[in-house]
């Protein structure tokens, strides 16, 4: 190589290297500008910054029809009574349209067998899932955020088996399914993790709860069943149980609720644990008004609606009617 070649070559090298260095600098400056954050993490002037932006739950309700708000059906056979109760309200056609995605929220709080009545009875799940599919629902989802270990709860309660057998999809709760939510006008549900993901794609919601005694709130029925939508360390809300139940009732706008009083847990609720806690009461309630359903349910626990302060709070918030008789419940009996 001649000297001039050498100089040319090193000059060329320098230009190439210089270009690469310039490109590196440009990349560094570009990244720095792109990600530049002059202020850093922001001060929060409102409480509870941790869970981020608040969203809402969709409204799943269907238009109200006077005279077809609540039905009370006597009978031992859950499949028959629940079918009849829905039929009285206008049939499944009123609530579900072909192609709907339906979420069923039973009470799967405890890992106890159906015979102990602490969880929604699988027979009701089966009946309702079948009804939805008969109405050509696209998909039925059964889910809950259990108190005991979810997998054990779904298995031992028989709900997993019943739901799957009827063709429903069972969704187990998972941390990422919760998102922060604030109830407008509420005082408790502020930026609190709510079990939202399973409801995101659904357009109908059916709540199905057993009828139980409850030591903190006197009764656990439809409205208390929405406690299962709370995530996080939700038990802090036991400090104000009536308001949290009422706020949940405001937050959740279901299509239809079913209160299963075929057996009623009279004592030792909400876990029960013995058949001696149960009483045969042979009643199935279907309702578009959960306050009315729970108000009626209280009578089966030998309580007055006034014994459940959350009913009055929810009524005041416009959720429903405590005086269920004024709604002219449709009553019948099936054998």
């Amino acid at each position: 190589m001649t000297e001039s070649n050498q100089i040319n070559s090193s000059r060329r090298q320098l230009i190439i290297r210089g270009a690469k260095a310039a490109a590196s600098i440009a990349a560094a400056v570009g990244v720095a500008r792109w990600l530049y954050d002059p202020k850093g993490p922001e001060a929060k002037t409102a409480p509870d910054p941790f869970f981020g932006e608040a969203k809402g739950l969709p409204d799943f309700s269907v238009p109200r029809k006077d005279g077809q708000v609540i039905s009370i059906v006597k009978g031992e056979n859950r499949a028959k009574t629940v079918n009849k109760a829905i039929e009285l309200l206008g049939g499944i056609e009123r609530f579900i349209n072909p192609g709907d995605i339906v979420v069923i929220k039973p009470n799967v709080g405890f890992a106890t067998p159906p015979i102990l009545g602490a969880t929604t009875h699988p027979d009701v799940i089966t009946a309702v899932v079948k009804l939805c599919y008969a109405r050509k629902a696209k998909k039925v989802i059964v889910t809950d955020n259990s108190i005991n270990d979810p997998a054990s709860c779904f298995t031992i309660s028989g709900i997993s088996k019943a739901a799957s057998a009827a063709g429903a999809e069972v969704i187990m709760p998972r941390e990422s399914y919760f998102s922060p939510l604030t109830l407008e006008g509420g005082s408790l549900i502020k930026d609190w993790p709510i079990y939202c993901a399973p409801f995101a794609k659904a357009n109908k919601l059916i709540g199905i709860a057993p009828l139980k005694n409850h030591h903190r709130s006197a009764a656990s029925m439809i409205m208390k069943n929405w406690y299962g939508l709370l995530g996080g360390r939700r038990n802090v809300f036991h400090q104000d149980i009536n308001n949290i139940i009422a706020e949940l009732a405001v937050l959740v706008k279901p299509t239809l609720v079913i209160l299963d009083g075929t057996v009623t847990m009279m004592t030792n609720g909400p876990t029960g644990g013995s058949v001696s806690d149960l009483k045969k009461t042979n009643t199935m309630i279907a309702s578009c008004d959960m306050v009315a359903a729970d108000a009626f349910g209280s009578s089966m626990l030998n309580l007055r609606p006034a014994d459940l302060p959350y009913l009055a709070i929810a009524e005041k918030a416009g959720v429903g009617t405590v005086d269920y008789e004024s709604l002219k419940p449709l009553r019948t009996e099936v054998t």
Partner: protein
Amino acid sequence: MKITTVRRINQLFFFALFVWFCIVTTVGEKFWQIRNWPINWILQLDPLVALGTIISTRKFYGPLHCALGVVILTIIFGRFFCGWICPFGAIHQFVGYLGNRRKKLADKIRLNAYRKAQCIKYLVLIFFLGMAAFPSLASTLQTGLLDPIPLVTRSFQLVLLPIFDRGTYLTSVNARYYEFGWLILAVFAAAILLNLVIPRFYCRFICPTGAFLGIISRFSIWRIGKIKSKGIECKMCEKACEGGCEPNGNIKIAECVLCFNCRDGCQHHHIAYKTVPSLAGETQVDISRRGVVLSFVSGVLAAPAIRLSGKVASNWYTGVVRPPGALAEPEFLKRCLKCGQCMRVCPTNVIQPAGIEGGLEGLWTPILNNRIGSSGCQLNCVACGQVCPTSAIRPITLDEKRGLGVFESAGPIKLGTAFVDQGRCLPWAMDKPCIVCQENCPVSPKAIFTKDVFTTVRDGVVSIKQVTGSTIEIDRDIPADKFATGDYYVLFEDGSRCKISSNTATSVGISEGKLPASAGKIEIQVRLQKPCVDIEKCIGCGVCEHECPVSGRRAIRITAEGETRITDRRLLL
């Protein structure tokens, strides 16, 4: 002046500046205390601080912008930061020089030869960046463990200055304490002493910042190299080579720290800092693809592996009480450098370097220990957030800390909650009046209130022998003067009570109220104020815990339940 002299002056300047910034990181009114000195400037220059936080947070925090300058200059000039600025590097260079100056020339050349193991620092860097890279797995910033600037800052602030202060009290009025300071010292001492084995051991083999700068100096315009392809093999250029980059032969350009010892050492002027690569050849960063992949994947997996402890989830340790303004734990762990600035500036010394109680990744992060220091977390102090270089502790205002002004609806920042241990508390368990905690609660109205009760003292039921004036003679011996302290009362059979104003071994004197019948029984009672915590008011500052006279395991203690930085830990609705 020789360029190496300029370099030495520069190193000395930055080292002195660093020490000065350490010294002034103290709250006080003297000029050499915190007076808007840019105490974080060297941390802000550190390019790995910027890179690490960019990767963990996906944001380039404004005050770190100086690091971009270092990056740009490194891309143009090479690793000048290591050889000219880094105070840790300066210490290594000095100790390495002292330790090896008497060695023979051949030994010096051998000591400063390139070693394959110098690639370890790149693996360390990649491992740490892997730990920070994936928030969905568990991103955690651990560069601070070995990043030289946080390391040397922590070592000076939490170990060397406090040791130095022990006898001299130059920078603090009282001795400072730092739990786990011994471990910080151990790491620092090991890094320093390794210079006696190989000079600049830390820089060559471990330093992740040097590794990063080595990588980005790849295209540097100016570089050290030989200007003669064939020369005399005297190797004088390698006798004091700080980077161990072998300038005589095929220079390992990423290892060169621009010390210029080779250039000044060469009597033949064969070495120059020019725009032309070394005519004896250059080698780029010497790491295998396998090494890169392995260390990156290990880092990525190490983060969720550490989180298996559940310490950043439901198994969080109640004693991890963070300073006011600290971000929620996962965000905090993405930013904290473990540099110790908050612990040094804290006027009360309550902020301490954590052990691994908050998880392995929480080592040396700031937690409050109310048994150390002068007085818990002061109500009107926000010093820690003001000095945090990465906003792991946000620079909050007093208004925000106390929930005033625009922060009124958010309420005050709570660090945790005070819990009374009724089994250890003097009034609760031992019938002794106390309420030091209530007195010292700085919140207004106080977060500690008392339940006032009268309790009959041990063997306190006695029979009246005779009543003379306001003195009641009793039938049994009692300790003289014990009950005349103002806290003791006599309960009469009719239910009325009088304060005891004097007592002898056989009588009690009362000062006011009606006198009883001259026979029957009386009870000697103590008036107790039993402290209770109002969790709506308590901010977890720890002054009560600090003051509690049960000096070992305190009878009132702060734990992190209820801290406002993490919603899920709230106790209140």
